[in-house]
């Protein structure tokens, strides 16, 4: 199981990476492993607002359908179009090719209250 050091993590198993106010969001290696083979993903449209802790999309695997929760509030500026036809990317490469959305985060927002890699790893191992 991978927990990259440069990411922040939510309790709902999303990861976030901030690059100059643009936050890339995806689901973690742990999440894809738990979900099993992912067959469908529903993402917001570019321009949609997202709110921290609220659902921004849906991921469906052979086991279950789950909401995706945004780690940050802001506006969607880009979505990963390739996931629509290749949802298996989420299983194969959750931290890179499997990224989901780019969010331009609102002013005064930070990722500081999210878990860092070691905290998240501990959180997963305990659950």
């Amino acid at each position, binding site marked *: 199981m991978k927990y990259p050091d440069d990411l922040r993590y939510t309790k709902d198993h999303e990861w976030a990476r901030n690059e100059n106010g643009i936050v890339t969001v995806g689901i973690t290696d742990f999440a894809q492993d*738990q979900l*099993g*083979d992912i*067959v*469908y993903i529903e993402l917001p449209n570019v321009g949609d607002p997202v709110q921290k802790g609220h659902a921004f999309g849906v991921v*469906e695997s*052979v*086991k*279950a359908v*789950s909401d995706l929760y945004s780690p940050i509030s802001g506006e969607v500026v880009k979505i990963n179009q390739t996931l629509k036809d290749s*949802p*298996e990317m989420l299983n194969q490469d959750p931290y890179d090719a499997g990224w989901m959305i780019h969010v331009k985060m609102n002013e005064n927002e930070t990722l500081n209250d999210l878990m860092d890699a070691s905290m998240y790893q501990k959180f997963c191992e305990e*659950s």
Partner: protein
Amino acid sequence: MQDYRRKLIFEKSSEGRSAFNLYQKEEPVSIPKTFLRKEPMGLPQVSELEVIRHYVALAHSNFSIEKGLYPLGSCTMKYNPKINDQMACLPGFANLHPYAPTSLTQGALKIFHELERWLCELSGMHAVTLIPAAGAQGEYTGLRLIRAYHKDHGLNKNTVLIPDSAHGTNPASAALCGYEIKKIPSNKDGILDPKDVEKLLTDDTAAIMITNPNTLGLFEENIGEIAKLLHAKDAFLYCDGANFNALMGHTLVSKMGVDVIQFNLHKTFSTPHGGGGPGAGPVGVVQKLEPYLPTPRVQKEKDEFIWKEFPKSIGHIKAFYGNFGVLVRAYTYMCALGKEGILKASQMAVLNANIIKTKLKSAYHLPYDHKPCMHEVVFTDKKQSQTGVKTLDIAKRLMDYGFHPPTVYFPLIVQGAMMIEPTETEPPEEIDRFCDAMLAIAKEAETDPQKVKTAPHTTPVARVDEVKAARQLILKYQTKISS
């Protein structure tokens, strides 16, 4: 021999073959020409014997409660006694027309009336509607009643609280009813803590939806305290009655402070279940919600049963009066068991689940073991996953032993959950056989994990590619048949 698997009935078609020739007049009937079909319909051309063989073969490859144990957790797949069907098929019931005048349907109306009273008696609720056609429609109806009450009393409430162990239908029904959903975490013992409810409870809270016992098979022992918190805020306690099989005859949900409950007759009261219905999800309510119940409602005036509309009702929610045939089956079941029989059924359901819990807990990880379970028990694949064997593999392997798999990967708060509900209708020998199979699989997971991971080996269809099936859905016959 396995022909039925490879070929659809369409693919067995052979030009000119048929089971029956319809007599055709020269001037065929009086259908206007514009409506007459211009090309043949493209139905399979097969003999009667081929049709029979095709469907008998399909039936043989099917699995049902009549073939073996069907321990789907929270689905209560109990045996449905044949007498239920016999009664529902009585011509006086089966041939009733919903528009028949009440002077000719007094017997049917009496069944509605008595079934309502009996459900009230088993739950402690004040009134019941039998109309909802399924558990989820019952949930939706119950929430509509709550909405109607709040609106009627000038209260604007838009949030429903739902535990993280709930059935997926709960948030779905609440969302459909226009509510925002807030998730309540279960505590370390797998139940709700009133403190967690209190934190989320606001003036905006319309209701909480609690399944009791919950989907972990655990009794929500704080439900009374939670009800008090809600009632102080003019909010309602909705009880999802999906697991009522564990409670019936034991206690009244009214004593727990429940305001609304739906009864899944197709679970608890032995009416047909699965395959898309028809089901029945009657809803029971406390007195203050009664005025809003859907109509028409059956009423007894003098010695006559009549249908009545009520001004504050949420109105009609389904054509006519619900799935009457299903109601007759549930009524028959209750007549056959009587009050004591119903209590006994519930006791046996809990006993069977606890036998399984006790026998399997050395081999399978039991996430919640601090008290006896109710009618179902949840294990996980934690021990087996050390050799790479997962819940899905165990479920598939069970089929080789002649059992339907349990509910898997639910509730969502338990990783790799296997939710087993044997029901009261299984004899102890069958419970033992099931436990032996589960123990044998646990052993195989250690000694021969590959065998489990590639299961099933003996079923008509081997392991299917679920990913391919989900990504490349083919829902209809695609090859054009030669006509």
